[in-house]
């Protein structure tokens, strides 16, 4: 192999390493810091487990929820969101893909606009809606808002998957004697399983990591807080930021997402590659 060829081969690797390096360093520091008394750059000043003390009792004193209550809240939001988004998106996506009804076109373009709409601009309006419905500062309220923001994406994604299922299969099932609902549930849904799985992962992760909406529609690190909001409490106005504790909670929050990613990498790849790879 000539030197030139060898050099050519190395180039992509070098580029990849350079771009990924900051991220890797970031994670390295995160882990290091969570087990250190303090850090000086990338050097630890000593090992400690005290940063993880939030796992037992509340670091903020009485009246504040324990980490487990907050974790439960986050799970409720993320899983509730996943289920609601899947159910609504797969029904709406099917209807938009297969049925011809008045207003179909405008509904499609409207959801697309909603998807592109910056959600920040709606926060104040939604605040009034939630307060009127007595859902302000509740996990339910936060969940509903997040579902609403996730749906346009979910519906479009599912419509795309349904579009890829052949009409013949649906017709065959109807001739075999299935009702429209059974065709949807027994024939079409199983063939787009990868799409559903991928949407589930997206919805779960966006629910799990959400900060803006829980932060806006709950009060501080109260009983209704989610992990991201809870994390923010370590940054007080009057005390110095406890970076060790912040990194430990951050790492704690990362665990479920990391587990999710490990098990679903293939499915995520198939959705990024642009569609169902058949249901076999």
């Amino acid at each position, binding site marked *: 192999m000539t030197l030139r060829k060898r050099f050519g081969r190395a180039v992509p690797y070098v580029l990849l390493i350079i771009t990924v390096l900051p991220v890797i360093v970031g994670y390295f520091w995160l882990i290091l810091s969570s087990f250190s008394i303090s850090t000086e750059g990338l050097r630890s000043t000593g090992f400690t487990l005290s940063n993880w003390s939030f796992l037992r009792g509340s670091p903020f004193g009485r009246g504040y929820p324990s980490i487990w209550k907050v974790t439960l809240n986050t799970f409720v939001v993320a899983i509730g969101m996943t289920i609601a988004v899947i159910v609504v998106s797969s029904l709406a996506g099917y209807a938009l893909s297969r049925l011809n009804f008045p207003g179909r076109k405008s509904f499609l373009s409207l959801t697309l606009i909603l998807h592109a709409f910056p959600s920040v601009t709606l926060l104040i309006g939604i605040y009034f809606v939630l307060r009127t419905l007595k859902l302000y500062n509740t996990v339910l309220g936060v969940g509903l808002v997040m579902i609403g923001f996730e749906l346009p994406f979910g519906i479009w994604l599912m419509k795309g998957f349904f579009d890829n299922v052949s009409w013949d*299969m649906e*017709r065959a099932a*109807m001739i075999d004697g*299935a009702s429209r609902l*059974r065709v949807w549930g027994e024939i079409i849904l*199983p063939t787009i399983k990868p799409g559903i799985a991928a949407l589930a992962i997206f919805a779960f992760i966006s629910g799990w990591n959400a900060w803006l909406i829980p932060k806006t529609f709950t009060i501080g690190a109260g009983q209704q807080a989610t992990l991201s909001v809870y994390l923010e409490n370590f940054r007080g106005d009057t005390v110095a930021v406890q970076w060790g504790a912040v990194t430990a909670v951050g790492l704690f929050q990362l665990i479920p997402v990391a587990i999710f990613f490990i098990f679903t990498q293939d499915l995520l790849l198939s959705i990024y590659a642009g569609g169902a790879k058949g249901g076999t």
Partner: protein
Amino acid sequence: MKVKLENLSKRWGKVVGADHINLDINDGEFVAFLGPSGCGKTTTLLMVAGIYKPTEGNIWFDNQVVNYMTPKDRNIGMVFQSYALYPHMNVFQNISYPLKLKKVPKNDMRERAQRVADMMGIGHLMDRRPAQLSGGQQQRVALGRALVKEPQLLLFDEPLSNLDARLRLSMRGEIKRLVIELGITAIYVTHDQVEAMTMADRIAVMKEGKLQAYDPPDELYDQPRTLFVAGFVGNPPMNFLEVEVSRKNGDYHAHREKFDAIVPTEQGEKTAGKGNVIMGIRPEDITISDEGVGGEIYVVEPLGRDDLVTVQIGEAIVHVLADPVLGLKMGQNVTLDFSTHKVQFFDPQTEKSLLWAE
């Protein structure tokens, strides 16, 4: 079961799928819908299946109008070009799905599915997924699924198009035999005229949503009612020449530039003195002989059993099937005999046959 289509039309806004189709199908008859793609044959089939609702007209099953009956109540079986097998189910589940929906008891279901699968020669593949089967096997599963509920009407939508040539030939025979043995009324949609000719009792030729002809294969072949039917049915296709027919010395002659052929009296009587008409003659009905119309061979294409010879006569091009023994060569001069009673004549305006018009 008898099927009757009465003034059946399907329109989507201005797009016409099927245009006033009228035809009867007898009990146990095998009918083919034949036509180029986009001619409305699949549209018509899907209306019979109940997937599309007719815009106009009626569909009769025996003595009942079924326009608004759902597909599942029609007791039909259908085989699709793409097979449309359910990829997440194994062969057994695919075949037994119609029975499951009918709530047939488990044991009964297993027995019936197995019987159909054995009949189709796939009884040993029950645990496989469709993706693990060859095209031919998938086709058999699709057939089994259509047959398992013992339908009164079988619909085929180009079922052999996705198979390779050799398999297509054997499946063609098998489907024909199966349908005849079971005595089920069948409608078979195809764009392949050989399939239609070989399998069907009667062929409905369609073009642009309209029914062009509805005849048994031999009649369609020997007595085409329209120019389109004549050109569409038969391979290699019929030759068409614009000629004028007149009577000379007791014989009828068809003539054009550098072309003069004697026409049988029966045909001549119906076409003489009508000005320009279109003469149609099949490549196999032209013979190369010592006397007749002279021309030059443009190209020779060996087909194995015959040679397809293209002959230039003045401005006109004529295809002839010739015996390879003759050893014809490009550029050679030949004389062609057109004097066959199988010669056809059509009106150039209406494109209808001048011989078989009703």
